[in-house]
């Protein structure tokens, strides 16, 4: 039963991802992308990570896809299905995509997915087997633990995002006065 659920999810993800790159109507592509992201969040749910599933939907469906749709709507005509699916760099891109796929495949084959290998994660034993009770706090502990967490990286990324935000406002302003 649960196995079947995984294959249904995987089928939806692969099929909609295939649609994203083959459909000629860009708006339909964006909708298929939303479905792909939703399917991925379904896989997270399947693995018992409710938090990641919700964040996946919130960020990728609620924000990224909406941004893409906005971009399409501002630049395309309704019913425009003449988007070019291929260009003349197909060989290079095939090579690049194949290389990425190979690396991912090797990584997945050689990883035993032991959460506890990293000292930061070992400090929070709940992470070895995600429990529904403490999922969010164990994630927070693994990420922001003052001894061996990633607090500095976390703050660094925050500052990076903040500067990007301010930069976007500065670029978008009409007259710099």
């Amino acid at each position: 039963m649960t196995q079947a659920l995984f294959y249904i999810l995987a089928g939806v993800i692969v099929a909609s991802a295939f649609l994203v790159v083959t459909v000629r109507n860009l708006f339909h592509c964006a909708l298929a992308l939303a479905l792909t992201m939703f399917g991925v969040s379904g896989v997270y749910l399947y693995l018992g990570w409710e938090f990641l599933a919700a964040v996946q939907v919130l960020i990728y469906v609620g924000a990224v896809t909406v941004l893409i749709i906005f971009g399409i709507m501002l630049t395309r005509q309704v019913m425009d299905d003449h988007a070019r699916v291929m260009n003349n760099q197909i060989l290079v891109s095939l090579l690049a995509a194949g290389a990425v796929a190979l690396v991912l495949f090797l990584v997945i084959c050689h990883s035993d997915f032991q959460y506890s290998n990293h000292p930061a994660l070992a400090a929070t034993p709940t992470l070895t087997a995600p429990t529904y009770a403490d999922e969010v706090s164990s994630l927070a502990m693994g990420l922001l633990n003052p001894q061996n967490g990633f607090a500095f990286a976390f703050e660094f990324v925050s500052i990076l995002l903040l500067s990007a935000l301010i930069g976007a406002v500065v670029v978008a302003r009409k007259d710099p006065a």
Partner: protein
Amino acid sequence: MISGEKLVQLVSSLLQQVYALLDLSAYAGILDRVVCAVVMFGFVAVFVMFLVWMERKVSAHMQSRIGPNRVGPLGLLQTLADAIKLTTKEDVRPAKRDKIPYFIAPILAFVATFMGMVVVPFDNKMVVADLNIGVLYIIAITSFTVIAILSAGWSSNNKYSLLGGFRSAAQIVSYEVPLVLSLVPVIMITGKLNFSGIVQYQQQAGYWFVFPQFVAFITFIASATAEANRAPFDIPEAESELTGGFHTEYSGVKFAMFFLGEYVAVVVSSAVAATVFLGGWLPPLHFLGFIPGFVWFMLKVLLIIYLIMAFRWTFPRLRVDQLMDFGWKVLIPVTILNILVTGFVVLLFGKGA
């Protein structure tokens, strides 16, 4: 009086007997969920009908009119008559529509908001799915409405629809930020993302969060009203300017789906406000505890819905630039400041301050 927990036990034991009778006990887990979904859908449909009636009565009252009073006692069946009219209407569709998004949009608009109802606790243990990350779940799942609205506006192939869709999506995206940020202080204090947990915290603390977090309550109600595209933030639908906005080209059942979705959005945000800020199923005074929790919960939800309805006839409609200014330059700074102050208080006095 019967409590919500007892009621749930009673119903589930009754269901067990029905399953045994029909020889379906093996599928009890799935069947339970199906029953929950159907019951929730029925409840929401009837409740929305009541709300439409209430909306018309409230607006009539505020304008010194009587309101609907012909169909059924006090006009209560007026909405039912309207619903029958809508569902039997011809489904007029633009010939040059974009077929798939046009079909999906109304369904998505309703389903996305309806799915939010799943994690709302009506009483202690009276909840369809008591998700550990309930608050985050509601925020995530309701973000689908933006895609539904954009699809509707785009696929109708009509410039009024498209403009309405754009405005609506821009508004929802902008007001989602203060909506989420005004829930953050409560999460900081309780350390919980689970709705039942937040209510239990209020029970133990002995106060409702509306008192220490009054600012957050106000910003939440304001952004929830904007999020549901209701007056005074109803520019996307401004009848006089945009001939109805993103659902201009929809009629019949499809229009009814958008309409239903809009009211469900109001119900969901009122339920969240009642749970997070008004103590959910808790009675206001201790000796009133003999009245069951779900009655208190529904009363609080109705109170907030009444507030949102009263806004419609109290404030004039905002202009587009005023709307964006209010969201980005007033609500967001206020909520961030509130988070900062709450953070200091939590840091100084520890959780539970």
